[in-house]
């Protein structure tokens, strides 16, 4: 209850802060500023208390709170227990709000120093208020008996030894019982990635709001140029953090979730990629505006768009609109949260673009002076291509909504849509990221420019030519490879020159080198991966994927009823062992599979377990029938008539003597009927099952389990198995592990590339911060 009240107070004071900041903007006076700052800080304090409370409830297992019960349990280790804070919607909104608050403290200081406080913080408090309103609606502090009143609220006398209850109304004898154990955390989330990845992602989402607030501030105060300088380090920082978050997500999917790759074009992944792309485009156009005053409007559009898209992505993945079209299951957040999110997007979009349109006419028109061979034009083309990629991904991800509006029913685009639409822009981006580095601002000398293209061009040509000789036959992929190699060579050359001069200016080249490496990694590891599904009979060596000898040697239990399946791998005399994991999870009521990877310098050998086939089950199926029921098994119909207890004499059974129980099955095929009786023989406690063969289709029927019901004989059940002796599947023998083995050539390029991109971003943040500081004070 306290938590709830604290959240409401925080919301009220955040709202007060909005009013005060806007008042001081309108009156252009500092009278209201102390109140605005004060109430903002109260809101921050409130959120911190609320977050601390939630964490405390989680750590002390207070299952009287629905949220705590829903996502945590007593058996979780502490880091994972902490991570359940943001395992559900309510908690992840809480985390987002908390980060917005923490960032808000720094932003207030920063904007004060730059003289932007009133406008920036006015908009920022609106964002905070909305997030807090969301928390009021999606309250993480709801009591469990309010969520499940029918199950938990009782009246009347208490049980003597009960401790897990609270009085709701002692006078009327009303009380509620609460659980002593929680439902626990989804096993797929139970690893260290869960501890880092969401944190980084939400930091990224939070920082994305800063360029937006600066753009809005710029519009509010009719400052069309200087805001860019102040906002730029934040934009680069946001892109760096969100990019890191996306990369960690990809690595998580690859390493633990067993998706087979690092990217699945899933709505959840796409929804963080879209705003990231826009922010990257925005970095490029901001740079151009700083240099030559171009792209004034574009920069406003992109800064507004990047945050609106963060909100839209949140809406897509949290409102349940995507329905059944994704592998992720989206929990319906309830009507209130749905409309609130929608209102959030609408208001920010109309406010942002509305204000932009209002100011459009008075914005200075910069006469375009740059030629076609200018860095400005290359940046423009590059940025628009990136925006195109973002739009394609956005359209694809929103396809269930689009098709529902157009055709009345939801359908999702196939994954191939993304591959197809991003490849041509990818080629363009790679080329431009090379060419742009060789061009000068305003205009370049033709001769010099073409001369500088020569070495990288020839280098890329030789590189790609080599690969074509080696077997690369796919033309678009070859062009993409050429473009990426070209960009790599250009940026290495240019980067080296810059680095010799002033390392701090090398951020751009470093990021582009990373990008080119990443692109090459995409080609090698995704387009030229090699896959095979293998059945590994225990102890028998099977050779797959030219030269990998796999031997399944058995499984061993890990903690918490998980099993590791040991596979020996031998390649050219080198030996490795891998142990992918499979286990049955009560939580998701299904098999959970974790892959294992051998990381070699030039490739990954990736083993993902599919299933373990026990020997007796091969070629057989097992069926459970109630008395009188029938079922179709291959080409015959089988009815369970009754148990046959005729051989059982009570005396014998009690003495532990031998007896036989049969199960009468009626087999029917094309109108012909017959009865067969598989039996269970009990010889002094030793049980033996005797199969019965049908003369109609030669299948063998055996008893697996008998479930007679003495009180209601018609409810007796029988589990039996049917085996087709002619079945082609490997019948007898050892247990067999089915795995998918794949080779991902040069996947290390993807990881090294992304790290290099992030490094480039960091160098740039550092430099832009110096720039913003040096000229701003």
């Amino acid at each position: 209850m306290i938590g709830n009240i604290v959240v409401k107070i925080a919301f009220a004071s955040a709202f007060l802060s909005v009013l005060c900041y806007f008042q001081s903007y309108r009156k252009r006076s500092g009278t209201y500023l102390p109140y605005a700052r004060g109430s903002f800080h109260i809101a921050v304090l409130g959120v911190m208390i609320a977050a601390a409370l939630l964490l405390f409830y989680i750590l002390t297992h207070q299952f009287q709170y629905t949220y705590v019960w829903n996502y945590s349990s007593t058996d979780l280790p502490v880091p994972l227990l902490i991570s359940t804070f943001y395992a559900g919607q309510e908690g992840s909104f809480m985390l987002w709000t908390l980060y917005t608050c923490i960032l808000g403290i720094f932003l207030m200081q920063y904007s004060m120093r730059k003289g932007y406080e009133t406008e920036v913080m006015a908009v920022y408090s609106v964002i905070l208020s909305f997030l807090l309103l969301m928390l009021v609606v999606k309250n993480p502090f709801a009591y469990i008996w309010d969520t499940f009143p029918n199950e938990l609220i009782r009246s009347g006398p208490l049980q003597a030894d009960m401790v897990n209850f609270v009085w709701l109304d002692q006078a009327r004898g009303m009380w509620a019982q609460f659980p002593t154990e929680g439902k626990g955390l989804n096993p797929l989330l139970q690893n260290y990635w869960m501890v880092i990845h969401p944190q980084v992602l939400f930091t990224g989402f939070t920082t994305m709001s800063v360029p937006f607030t600066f753009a809005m501030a710029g519009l509010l105060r009719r400052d069309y140029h200087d805001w860019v300088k102040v906002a730029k380090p934040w934009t680069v920082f946001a892109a760096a953090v969100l990019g890191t978050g996306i990369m960690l997500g990809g690595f998580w999917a690859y390493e633990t979730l067993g998706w087979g790759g690092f990217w699945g074009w899933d709505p959840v992944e796409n929804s963080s990629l879209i705003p990231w792309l826009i922010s990257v485009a925005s970095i490029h156009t901001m740079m151009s505006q700083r240099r030559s005053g171009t792209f004034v409007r574009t920069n406003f559009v992109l800064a507004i768009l990047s945050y609106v898209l963060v909100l839209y992505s949140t809406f897509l993945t949290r409102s349940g609109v995507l329905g059944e079209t994704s592998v992720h299951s989206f929990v319906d957040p309830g009507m209130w949260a749905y409309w609130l999110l929608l209102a959030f997007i609408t208001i920010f979009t109309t406010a942002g673009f509305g204000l932009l349109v209002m100011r459009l006419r008075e914005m200075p028109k910069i006469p375009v002076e740059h030629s076609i061979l200018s860095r400005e034009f290359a940046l423009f083309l590059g940025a628009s291509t990136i925006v195109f990629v973002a739009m394609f991904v956005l359209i694809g991800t929103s396809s269930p909504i689009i098709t529902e509006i157009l055709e009345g029913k939801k359908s999702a685009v196939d994954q191939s849509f993304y591959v197809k639409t991003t490849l041509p822009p990818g080629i363009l981006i790679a080329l431009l990221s090379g060419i742009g580095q060789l061009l000068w601002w305003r205009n370049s000398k033709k001769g010099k420019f073409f001369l500088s293209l020569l070495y990288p061009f020839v280098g890329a040509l030789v590189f790609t030519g080599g690969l074509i000789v080696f077997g690369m036959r796919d033309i678009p992929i070859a062009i993409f490879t050429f473009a990426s190699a070209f960009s790599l060579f250009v940026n290495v050359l240019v980067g080296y020159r810059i680095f010799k001069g002033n390392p701090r200016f090398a951020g751009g080249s470093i990021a582009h080198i990373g990008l080119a490496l990443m692109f090459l990694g995409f080609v090698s590891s995704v387009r030229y991966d090699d896959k095979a599904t293998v059945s590994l009979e225990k102890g028998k060596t099977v050779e797959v994927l030219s030269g990998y000898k796999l031997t399944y040697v058995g499984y061993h239990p890990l903690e918490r009823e998980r099993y590791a399946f040991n596979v020996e791998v031998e390649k050219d005399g080198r030996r490795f062992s891998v142990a992918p994991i499979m286990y049955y999870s009560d939580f998701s009521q299904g098999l959970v599979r974790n892959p294992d990877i051998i990381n070699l310098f030039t490739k990954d050998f990736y083993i993902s377990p599919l299933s373990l086939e026990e020997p007796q089950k091969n070629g057989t199926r097992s069926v459970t029938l109630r008395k009188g029921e029938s079922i179709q098994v291959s080409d015959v119909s089988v009815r369970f008539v009754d148990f046959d207890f005729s051989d059982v004499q009570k005396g014998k059974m009690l003495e532990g003597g031998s007896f036989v129980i049969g199960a009468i099955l009626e087999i029917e095929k094309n109108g012909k009927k017959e009865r067969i009786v598989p039996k269970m023989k009990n010889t002094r406690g030793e049980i033996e099952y005797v199969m019965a063969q049908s003369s109609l289709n030669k299948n063998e029927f055996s008893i697996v389990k008998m479930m007679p019901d003495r009180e209601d004989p018609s409810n007796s059940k029988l589990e039996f198995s049917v085996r087709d002796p002619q079945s082609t599947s490997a019948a007898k023998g050892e247990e067999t592990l089915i795995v998918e083995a794949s080779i991902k050539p040069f996947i290390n390029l993807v990881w090294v590339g992304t790290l290099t991109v992030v490094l480039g971003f960091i160098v740039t943040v550092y430099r832009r911060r110096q720039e913003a500081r040096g000229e701003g004070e």
Partner: protein
Amino acid sequence: MKIKIIIASLIILIGIVFGAVSFMESSVEYTGFSAAKSTHRKVHVKGEWVREKGGEFDATKSQFVFYMRDDDDEEMKVVLEGAKPNNFEVATSIVVKGSYQNGYFHASELLTKCPSKYEGDAESVKKML
């Protein structure tokens, strides 16, 4: 100056057309098995697993074979590339993505829809008292 504008608008135009065409091509419709039979395009079919007929994993081909009844009550054999999906047994409905081939539906993907969370939760909260 003029060339720049032409290049820029050309790129934008190509982008839009390219995006729209790819979208139309890649959109995978939701239909029933009867409609899937008449087209060879990739479609989504929603329905239920025919529990009585079981399901079998063919280890040699790495395919999971089962029978499915779509929302129009039409039944068809489905061959899924890969192992039996998680949650398959508890799913209230399933969606397969793929195309019809001689006599069966060849699915490349399968999504499971699980019982409403609230109902499940009301049951499980009682067990944890």
